């Protein structure tokens, strides 16, 4: 079996793969990775998943078209990179990962339809996918009904927990509270102005932030405004900000609206080197569109920045750029997307099986020490323990790390006192 060249690893792919995986020392030990040496299919797959003696199939379900494509492309790229690296290192339980990519087309029912197709027709062992909360909400009943396993990469509002989902991004309290504590302490901030896009994630995040500001930090929220998705007129709220003079502008505006918001802020003479602004929605990907000069000086609070200075990240970033081009930037969600296939692999190996029930049960406690963000571990509630970091946007579109929590923060999707 192993003296036959691997079918899926022929020329162009292999070259890319070898370059991308140069960082992995295992490659030099295994010049031609061999598959099929793992445990028998009958023992690792008792539920009829798409697993053969040499291959295991997973699904990738993101928007490759439509308004969300610009955001989700990074996740697709990261997941493909992770799958190639895992294959180069010998696959999962001796089997090469084959992926089927489906397009959710930025349309929630399409996500549900494609998730069902992946689970029912293709019998995939896991799905790496979804981005917006709305797409996850559409897919969730499907993965629960057909007992699939979804690895969801985006930071999100919490208030959800499922046996069939591993949330590799941060939930709201994990992301927000440390950032608010830091800015209150460092900047002596007492008054906050909230601006968000009008849907569930910003509203829930702001609700949590408001309770924290009022009850814990004993500060004041001087304004809270929401704009429809895709909105590009922020002049009235910018005038209100200038009138109320908050210590901190706290924003969770998403997508293309960010471009208009930061440009109008700058045009109105709000200088981000003097006016503190804390965002939880702008990653390196968004700055690509906003332009570094329009947002330099703003603080962002999340778990990963491309500029993180640790050994894992120093191999991850070049590997990503090798595969997808020098100009690509890597944001928080892209990194979380990269965690999905790896966590799944590690869980499969811990469980000794691809069966979804066994993976769901074995997930708690799985740790990934090579994570670009440092180290992550899956909590019993299927979210990740992770650190929270504050970065400051620079002119070149990168963030400079200003602060990181000393310890991993426990994920708490149903936070008491914040609902």
């Amino acid at each position: 079996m192993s003296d036959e060249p691997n079918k899926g690893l022929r020329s162009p792919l292999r070259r890319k793969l070898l370059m991308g995986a140069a960082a992995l020392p295992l490659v030099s030990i295994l010049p031609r990775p061999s598959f099929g040496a793992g445990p028998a299919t009958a023992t690792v797959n008792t539920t009829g998943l798409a697993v053969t003696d040499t291959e295991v199939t997973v699904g990738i379900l993101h928007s490759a078209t439509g308004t969300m494509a610009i955001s989700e492309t990074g996740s697709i790229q990261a997941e493909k990179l992770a799958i190639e690296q895992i294959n180069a290192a010998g696959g999962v339980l001796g089997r090469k990962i084959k992926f089927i990519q489906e397009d959710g087309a930025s349309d929630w029912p399409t996500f549900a339809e494609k998730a069902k197709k992946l689970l029912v027709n293709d019998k995939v062992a896991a799905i790496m996918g979804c981005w917006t909360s709305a797409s996850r909400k559409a897919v969730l009943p499907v993965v629960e009904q057909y007992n699939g396993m979804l690895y969801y990469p985006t930071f999100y509002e919490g208030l959800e927990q499922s046996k069939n989902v591993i949330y590799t991004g941060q939930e709201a309290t994990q992301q927000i509270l440390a950032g608010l504590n830091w800015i209150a302490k460092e900047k002596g901030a007492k008054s906050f102005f909230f601006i968000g896009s009008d849907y569930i994630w910003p509203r829930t995040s702001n609700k949590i932030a408001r309770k924290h500001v009022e009850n814990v930090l004993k500060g004041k929220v001087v304004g809270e405004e929401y704009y429809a998705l895709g909105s590009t007129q922020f002049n009235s709220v910018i005038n209100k900000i200038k009138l109320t003079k908050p210590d901190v502008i706290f924003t969770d505006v998403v997508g293309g609206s960010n471009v208009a918001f930061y440009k109008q802020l700058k045009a109105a003479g709000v200088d981000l080197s003097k006016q503190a602004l804390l965002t939880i929605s702008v990653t390196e990907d968004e700055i690509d569109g906003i332009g570094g000069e329009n947002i330099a000086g703003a603080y962002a609070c999340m778990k990963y920045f491309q500029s993180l200075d640790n050994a894992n990240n120093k191999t991850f970033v070049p590997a990503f750029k090798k595969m997808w081009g020098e100009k690509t930037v890597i944001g928080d969600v892209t990194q979380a997307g990269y965690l999905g296939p790896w966590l799944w692999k590690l869980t499969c190996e811990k469980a000794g099986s691809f069966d979804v029930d066994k993976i769901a049960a074995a997930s708690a406690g799985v740790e990934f020490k090579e994570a670009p963000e440092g180290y992550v571990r899956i909590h019993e509630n299927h979210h990740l323990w992770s650190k929270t970091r504050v970065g400051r946007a620079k002119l070149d579109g990168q963030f400079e790390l200003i602060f990181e929590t000393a310890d991993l923060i426990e994920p708490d999707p149903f936070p008491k006192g914040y609902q």
Partner: protein
Amino acid sequence: MIINSRFFNRSELIGFVTLALLLFLILPLSLDAFRLNLVAKYLTYAFVAIGLVLCWGYGGILSLGQGMFFGLGGYCMAMFLKLEASSVENTKIQSTPGIPDFMDWNQITALPFFWKPFHSFPLTLLAIVLVPTLFAFIIGTAMFKRRVGGVYFAIITQAIAAILTILIVGQQGYTGGINGITDLRTLNGWDIRTDHAKFILYFVEVVLLFGCIVTAQFIRLTKLGRILVAMREQEDRVRFSGYSVANFKIFAFCAAAIFSAIGGALFTLEVGFMSPSFVGIVPSIEMVIYTAVGGRMSIFGAVYGSLLVNFAKTTLSESFPQLWLFGLGALFIAVVLAFPNGLSGIWADHVQSRIDRLISSIKRKSGGWTSNSVADGAPAE
């Protein structure tokens, strides 16, 4: 012009039987549960397309806002299913058990008054039909009584669809916002998510679809249908002949709204959720495209158009996740440029005429009487 006394002429009868065979026998026997559920989803759009044949093809009223009626019907059904799914036991982890989860996330502590009727299934069924009709009646009365028509009417319907979307997204505590109403499970205790249930729902849907086809055919054949056509061709003459043009237009618009709403309600049952992405401008225009591809004068064409476009959407996007939208765009351009009368035009020009010629030549050979089959082939509009 002589009005055909038969309900279906021969070519329509062939179309009717073919469609019945296809939907009742061929598709259920040849497709697996997953694909059949997809067909069921496509067919919900056929309801809208049939409504558009009446209102746009015959009445000449182009509405670019059918998504709002589809959505209203769908939301009525979704509200009923959501209330059933949000029983106190199912929602004990919430701060206020017994209300839908998204209300709880938005700090709403009591069920809003307009949700209360949706505890009752009969009232829900009534609402699915009445709410969109009332809405269409108000829009229709406001527009047609003032003689707003043509392209202005199309633009206004589009604007109303956009406003309704913004309203639903903005009032997320009451409507579920951009996520829509999700995680629907049972209908009067019957689990609608199983393959068995989907199979039964498919047949319920096809029966309803044929109900709509027969109704549309009935409207088309009555004097009312003739007035609609006359109105489309020469509105002023109809008005000068003493007819109240506005009332007929309102009727056609309301009928199309009811068909759309039934489609929307079935969509919620088939797919298991409803969201504002079916209400706005883009889905509304897509629905017009289904009708255009099928042929806007043909009731059967509307069904085939909805099936074909959605089937193409699914298969193209499965095979080419990055490029499929271009393929779909090319399909639309090809249809409009090469076949302005859509699928039914292709059928009438290339297939139907040959069948007619064949049949009349057989008849001529076999018997004495001359055939008038070509004359009764298609109504003269």
